[in-house]
């Protein structure tokens, strides 16, 4: 009852505010009158009585204020007042408001964008049933950690475990492995081989038709059916139900569309959505001529499992580890030494939660992304320091206003609340602007991420979590960092503040001290960011500047797979010969060649070899990378020939099989001996293969730009069974302009073969540096942003300091100080701040960049050139920031300044 009354009466005062106010006014007036009457009875005159009554009562407004505060409604009311008043104040100083909102927007926007990225790639759970139960198996061996294993291993895990309610195998199908045709046209799509229990395991329900069943995935009898992703269904079939029952030709084998996955289920590998799902046991269609399903040597299958209810991750890990150990025991050979056996058996598995899918993207990007997250975190700190500085100087200039308000009966808490309300408005405005900025930055980020290898697709639209994140960050920034300035600026006594002129009063110096600390902090943080950005930019530069062992300029690449058009054996070789001839006859083509693998493509083939005259220990790493190339490959890529000869027309299918090795291989296996004429080889599917070395070429990078060129053998592709190959065409002009011409000239001779994947070697190398570029560009942007913020902070403080000291400077100049002296003082002071910032920042930077040493290339984390560069950049920018305040200081006219007194 009482509470209801409270609320009712409070609401009444809120809604009928004027009436309540009027009543209070009247009541107080009556009080005064009655009091005066009482005093008149004692013999005072009316005027005297009224005055005495007024003195007794004190400030009417103060009384009214206190009465208003007796009810809860006053808080709502005063909040409304504060809002209105704050809005007016902010509108009155549009410059301050604009700069503050902009700074907040930059700081918050950068953070929200990076948060969206982390959220999309690492935090968002798969839209499946009970995602927390999902696990993946990781394998730790001497070769590092991987998530791939062989199909027989997968079967062992599937059939023998006691901890998982279901296990599904997953494998990526991409062109050229996946050659898809629809209505006679080739389709550029990607797919996933999945076990029959894949969809039931996830608890995903179809958007149309039905999903794969375990019956369709029987060993040796995989049904030729496929499930489309929702995105592909919409893209290719416009969401028409008539798509069901139609056929897509995969590798010349028709597969029937039976259903569509739901729209929210994009992929179990975040960032890589497949267009279709194929039963795993149809694998032989794709791995021609021979299935991999019975091969324990090939590690290509990823495993997704679901924990049985009540089974914990460690329990399941223990269960699967036992199975894995037994598998390892079965894999040892009797002729191994004890040490080798031990090493082999020391391989381990680890179960990892897969609530947000396979961790490929997380593993690949986690480092760069967390580095970026750290950087935007620092930016946020700079933003906070900056905002605090601005609020502080603003609060000081408003000290008289606060003093007047306090004199009029306003409590200190009320003033602080007022200031915080203003901060709240700033924060929300900054947050909103930041969100806008983040959506723009996100699309840029998505672009940057997708430019890397594999064309990652990340959904970076801000979701609920991103909104919450932004809101929290904006409130923390403005409220937390606005509290101290608000508290300080309302502290001083009323009388002192009213008496003093703004500008020469004592407390302001105290504020300046905080301001100085904040500026030093900004410079220090800025140094850390700039240093990081410098290291990453130089890393990118180093990677782009290294000589990879081939010349990436002016080389067009395109792929052909004649076998999908039905050509066999020598027909394929004939076609390739004809195409090479035609290319060579083109006027702007310098040379052309063929290869199975192109440099820095990101994939390839390697194998363990034996080498004539070299005895390897059982577990010695005798793996070499292999490539099949045509004659002229080294000329086209401009990889130097060091010894022996190139492949030539004399090497045929019937002549001696020959190989060319690179310098790294020659050095490892032959030392200083001449390798020409020596033999090497390996066993493939039980068949012994042997090659004679006819030449040595220079080292070239194979998989990526960071690696040391690996030991590599090149085989003559015309001496082996030919499949899909890639052409390299060196042109004399910019390659892009020749693409259509090549297309055109191939038209007459290509027959059924399709030309695909046109690109340039340069683009391929650039693409492989996607991460490095992402980090370098973003950290460069963040460094620039930090620099800008620090500049604003320094400028703000110095401008404020000069304005505060107008009198002092005036007096000095009146007493004979020259402009130079004043300049020296102002510049000296700011230089001290910057130097202090550098002195604090540099050790932090050196400490921080130790964490990213492994991401650098060609320089250490204490790179002196970067250190010097960063310091110089900071110094120049700081100088610029102080120019205007310094100029203003020199221009102070002693007469004008003194007249202010």
């Amino acid at each position, binding site marked *: *009852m*009482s509470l209801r*009354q*409270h609320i009712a*009466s*409070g609401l009444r005062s809120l809604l009928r505010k004027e009436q309540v106010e009027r*009543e*209070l006014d*009247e*009541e*107080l007036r*009556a*009080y005064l*009158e*009655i*009091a005066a*009457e*009482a005093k008149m009875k004692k013999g005072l005159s009316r005027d005297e009585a009224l005055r005495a009554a007024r003195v*007794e*009562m*004190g400030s009417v407004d*103060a*009384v009214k204020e*206190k*009465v208003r*505060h*007796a*009810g809860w409604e006053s808080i709502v009311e005063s909040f409304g007042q504060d809002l209105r008043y704050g809005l007016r104040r902010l509108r009155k100083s549009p410059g301050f408001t604009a700069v503050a909102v902009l700074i907040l927007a930059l700081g918050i926007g950068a953070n929200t964008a990076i948060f969206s990225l982390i959220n999309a790639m690492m935090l968002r759970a798969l839209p499946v049933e009970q995602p927390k139960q999902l696990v993946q198996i990781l394998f730790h061996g001497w070769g590092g950690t991987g998530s791939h294993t062989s199909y027989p291993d997968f079967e062992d895990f599937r059939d023998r475990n006691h901890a998982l309610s279901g296990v599904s195998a997953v494998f990526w199908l991409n062109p050229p492995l996946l050659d898809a045709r629809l209505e006679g046209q080739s389709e550029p799509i990607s797919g996933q081989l999945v076990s029959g229990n894949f969809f039931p395991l996830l608890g995903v329900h179809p958007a149309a038709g039905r999903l794969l069943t375990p019956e369709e995935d029987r060993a040796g009898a995989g049904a030729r059916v496929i499930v489309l992703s929702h995105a592909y269904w919409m893209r290719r079939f416009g969401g028409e139900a008539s798509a069901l029952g139609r056929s897509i030709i995969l590798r010349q084998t028709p597969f029937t569309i039976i259903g569509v996955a739901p729209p929210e289920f994009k992929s179990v590998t975040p960032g890589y959505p497949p267009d279709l799902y194929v039963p795993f046991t149809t694998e032989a269609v794709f791995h021609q001529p021979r299935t991999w399903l019975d091969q324990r040597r090939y590690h290509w299958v990823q495993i997704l499992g679901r924990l049985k209810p009540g089974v914990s991750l460690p329990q399941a890990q223990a269960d699967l580890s036992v199975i894995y150990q037994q598998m390892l025991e079965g894999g040892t050979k009797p002729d191994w030494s004890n040490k080798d056996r031990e090493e082999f058996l020391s391989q381990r598995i680890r179960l990892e939660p897969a609530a947000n899918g396979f961790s490929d993207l997380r593993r690949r990007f986690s480092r760069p992304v967390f580095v970026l997250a750290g950087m935007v975190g620092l930016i946020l700190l700079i933003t906070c320091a900056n905002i605090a500085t601005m609020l502080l100087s603003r609060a000081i200039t408003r000290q008289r206003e606060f003093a007047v308000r306090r004199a009029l009966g306003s409590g200190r808490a009320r003033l602080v609340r007022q200031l915080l309300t203003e901060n709240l408005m700033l924060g929300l405005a900054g947050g909103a602007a930041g969100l806008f900025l983040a959506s723009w930055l996100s699309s840029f980020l998505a672009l940057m991420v997708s430019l890397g290898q594999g064309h990652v697709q990340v959904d970076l639209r801000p979701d609920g979590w991103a909104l919450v994140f932004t809101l929290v960050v904006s409130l923390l920034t403005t409220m937390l960092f606005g509290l101290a300035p608000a508290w300080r600026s309302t502290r001083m006594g009323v009388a002192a503040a009213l008496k003093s002129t703004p500008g020469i009063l004592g407390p302001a110096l105290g504020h300046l001290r905080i301001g100085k600390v904040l500026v030093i902090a900004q410079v220090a943080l800025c140094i850390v960011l700039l240093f990081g950005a410098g290291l990453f930019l130089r890393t990118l530069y180093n990677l782009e500047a290294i000589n990879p062992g081939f010349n990436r300029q002016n080389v067009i690449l395109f792929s052909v797979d004649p076998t999908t058009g039905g050509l066999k054996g020598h027909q394929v070789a004939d076609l390739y010969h004809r195409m090479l001839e035609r290319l060579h006859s083109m006027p702007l083509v310098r040379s052309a060649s063929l290869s199975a693998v192109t440099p820095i493509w990101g994939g390839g083939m390697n194998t363990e070899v034996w080498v004539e005259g070299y005895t390897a220990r059982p577990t010695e790493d005798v793996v070499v990378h292999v490539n099949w190339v045509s004659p002229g490959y080294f000329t086209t890529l401009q990889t130097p020939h060091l010894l022996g000869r190139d492949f030539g027309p004399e090497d045929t299918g019937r002549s001696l099989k020959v190989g060319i090795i690179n310098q790294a291989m020659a050095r490892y296996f032959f030392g200083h001996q001449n390798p020409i004429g020596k033999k090497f080889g390996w066993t493939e599917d039980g068949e012994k293969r042997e090659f004679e070395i006819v030449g040595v070429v220079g080292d070239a990078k194979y998989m990526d730009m960071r690696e040391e060129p690996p030991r590599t053998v090149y085989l003559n592709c015309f001496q082996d069974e030919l499949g899909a190959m890639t052409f390299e065409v060196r042109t004399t002009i910019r390659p892009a302009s020749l693409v259509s011409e090549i297309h055109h000239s191939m038209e007459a001779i290509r027959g059924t073969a399709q030309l695909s994947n046109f690109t340039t070697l340069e683009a391929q190398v650039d693409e492989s540096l996607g991460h490095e570029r992402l980090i370098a560009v973003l950290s460069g942007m963040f460094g620039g942003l930090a620099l800008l913020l620090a500049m604003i902070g320094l400028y703000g403080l110095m401008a404020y300091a000069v304005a505060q000291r107008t009198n002092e400077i005036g007096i000095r100049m009146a007493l004979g100080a020259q402009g130079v002296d004043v300049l020296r003082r102002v510049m000296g002071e700011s230089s001290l701040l910057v130097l202090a910032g550098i002195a604090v920042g540099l050790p932090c930077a050196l400490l921080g960049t130790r964490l990213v040493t492994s991401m650098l290339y060609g320089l250490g984390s204490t790179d002196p050139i970067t250190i010097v560069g960063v310091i110089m950049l900071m110094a120049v920018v700081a100088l610029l920031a102080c120019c205007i305040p310094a100029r203003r200081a020199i221009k102070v006219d002693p007469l004008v300044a003194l007249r202010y007194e």
Partner: protein
Amino acid sequence: MTDKPSGLVQGTLDMLILKTLDLEPMHGYGIALRIEQISKGVFQVNPGSLFPAFRRLERAGFLKTEWRDTENNRRAKYYVLTERGRKELKSETREWGRQITAIARILETP
């Protein structure tokens, strides 16, 4: 000018106001004057505490207000004790008595 009535234990102002109004309805100044007179000037109540107390007590439903004319024909807001206010006064007086006795006992203990 202190915010609190001189020497008044916090919370007792409300009780004194209720007590004053127990005799008859009265306007603000009258209440202040009455408290001062009865306490022989020991308690001086200023409007800065008086009016917020009125607002509080009214909110709590202990007081009603009505506009009446004073003996000098001036309109003033009169405060009237409600039934709830009377009950509150009783319970507060009882509580006050208990506390006073308790405190006195403590003070008298040698």
